[in-house]
């Protein structure tokens, strides 16, 4: 549906995006993951045809975004990072304007605007001035705008930033729903968000693609490295010996005494989940468990690992598993 080839963008002498290539298949939700300043927005702006590329091509539904701009742009619905709304307009008026801008036939404008408002549940807000809406509603109005003209491709640049948790889950559900009949590319710097919604993921850092892989592989790679944070009360040496004897438990690191006979440690789980076994063994030996939590790799750690490799293009699993050293502090989730 969308093919990106060797896309490059220079701002003066700085390369924001360096020759990236990937594709968005028909009817898939592609996650675009990267830290702030990785070149996510620049790439999305180029795919949407807002910014021209320095080199490289973007082909949407067979149309080149610079050569056949009008045809290509008709296939795209774009929600930029800041929703492009006019504060002085009313919601419905704004959406009608956007429909006209996208060349929706006059007879279809009403029905399309209605269905977009319904999908984002802003029908009650239709008469409100956009300036008086909350950030969440502004975001929804911007989202509704992207749906007008029935585009085949949706480009969503960090659509959940600044929303409250209930709205975030609503937006995620909506993206999943839209993914059934659209190709969606969706950027975020939050790993959990990408894995909750997307089927495939492109990881980008400093303008370069580090990996393109399915979300299942990503999860597996992260699980393979799952760590357990334990806070225990009782005999420390005994506890550590017991833990080491359990099959599936790897290294035990970061052992910290915290007084009151308590201590915390980090346990590496090698393959399957052995939490229940750990629990029963410890309890049987009168070591009480004060706290037990999973610490998956955070995005930062994934990046540290991947960038430490200094290579790109292979699958995530390879990248993650080949890393010899672990990042020190595993943050709790």
């Amino acid at each position, binding site marked *: 549906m969308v093919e990106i080839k060797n896309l490059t963008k220079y701002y003066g002498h700085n390369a924001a995006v360096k020759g990236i290539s990937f594709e968005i298949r028909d009817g898939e939700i592609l996650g675009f993951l990267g830290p702030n300043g990785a070149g996510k927005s*620049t790439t999305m*702006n180029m795919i949407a*045809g807002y910014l021209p590329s320095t080199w490289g091509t973007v082909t949407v539904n067979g149309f080149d975004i610079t050569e056949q*701009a009008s045809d290509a742009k008709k296939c795209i619905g774009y929600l930029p990072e800041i929703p*492009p*709304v006019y504060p*002085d307009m009313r919601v419905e*008026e704004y959406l009608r304007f956007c429909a006209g*801008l996208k060349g929706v036939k006059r007879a279809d404008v009403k029905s399309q605007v209605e269905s977009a408002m319904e999908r984002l549940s802003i029908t009650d807000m239709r008469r409100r001035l956009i300036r008086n809406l909350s950030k969440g509603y502004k975001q929804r109005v911007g989202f509704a705008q992207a749906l007008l003209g029935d585009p085949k491709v949706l480009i969503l640049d960090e659509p959940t930033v600044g929303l409250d948790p209930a709205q975030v889950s609503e937006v995620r559900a909506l993206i999943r729903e839209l993914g059934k009949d659209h190709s969606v590319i969706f950027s975020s710097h939050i790993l959990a968000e990408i894995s909750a919604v997307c089927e495939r993921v492109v990881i980008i850092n400093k303008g370069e693609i580090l990996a393109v892989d399915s979300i299942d592989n990503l999860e597996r790679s992260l699980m393979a490295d799952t760590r357990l944070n334990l806070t225990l009360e009782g005999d420390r040496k005994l506890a550590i010996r017991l833990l080491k004897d359990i099959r599936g438990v790897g290294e035990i690191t970061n052992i910290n005494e915290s007084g009151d006979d308590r201590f915390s440690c980090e346990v590496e789980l090698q393959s399957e989940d052995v939490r229940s076994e750990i629990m029963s063994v410890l309890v049987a030996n009168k070591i009480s468990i004060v706290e037990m939590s999973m610490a998956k790799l955070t995005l930062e750690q994934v990046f540290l690992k991947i960038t430490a490799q200094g290579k790109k293009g292979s699958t995530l699993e390879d990248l993650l598993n080949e890393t010899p050293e672990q990042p020190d502090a595993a943050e709790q989730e």
Partner: protein
Amino acid sequence: MFALYKKEIQSFFFSPFAYVLASLFMFVFSVSFISAIADLSGTNTLKFSFPNIFYNNFFYFIFIIPILTMRSFADERRGGTEVLLLSSPLSVPKIVLAKFFSIVTIYIFMILTTLFFPIYIAGHGVVQWSALICAYLGFFLWGLVCIAVGMLLSQLTGNAIIAAIIGEIIMEGLLFLDLFGATALVNAYPRLNSVITWFSMQRRFLYFSQGMFRLEDLIFFLSLTAVVVCWNIIAIEKRRYSRS
């Protein structure tokens, strides 16, 4: 393209901005009208002429057009709505033209409000319509150039206030060009003088306000407008390539 044109006009007329500006324009016009009437006494009634009023208004109007155009692109850039326009199927020339024509429409509306005065006069005396139409045409053409320049500045500066101020400066500069062209220094160099007077808008406007329609002036105003509008289109494309 029509959708954008319509939205621009709507946003102008749905805000108090339009009416404040239109009333300022009407106020300026009526002040010069009243003072022209008040100046009449005894037998010098022939002194009263609409073209003269237009000519006087020319100087006040310079301050109104940049205010009309200052927000056209600056607000889009500020509010992030530029993305919406540039990622829509509309091409850059169409975006610029839609905005240009919407401001021209508003400008025509403002000019037409001043028809009140000649119509009022026509009820009490004789109005020389042919000369008046010519003066209106000159006023309109001159306005086109100012609108194109104002839009370009709004686009280049990205800030409404700065665009308005630079707009005023440029308009003042154009007026100053005439004074400068008339100095002894410039007159000493006939070639320089001819270049300066060729660019002088005031001189060309004077022909119109005297009821003289010259094809040369028509082409001058229209081509200058076209050049500035094209400049605007190129400047937008250039900015897309060079900056975020």
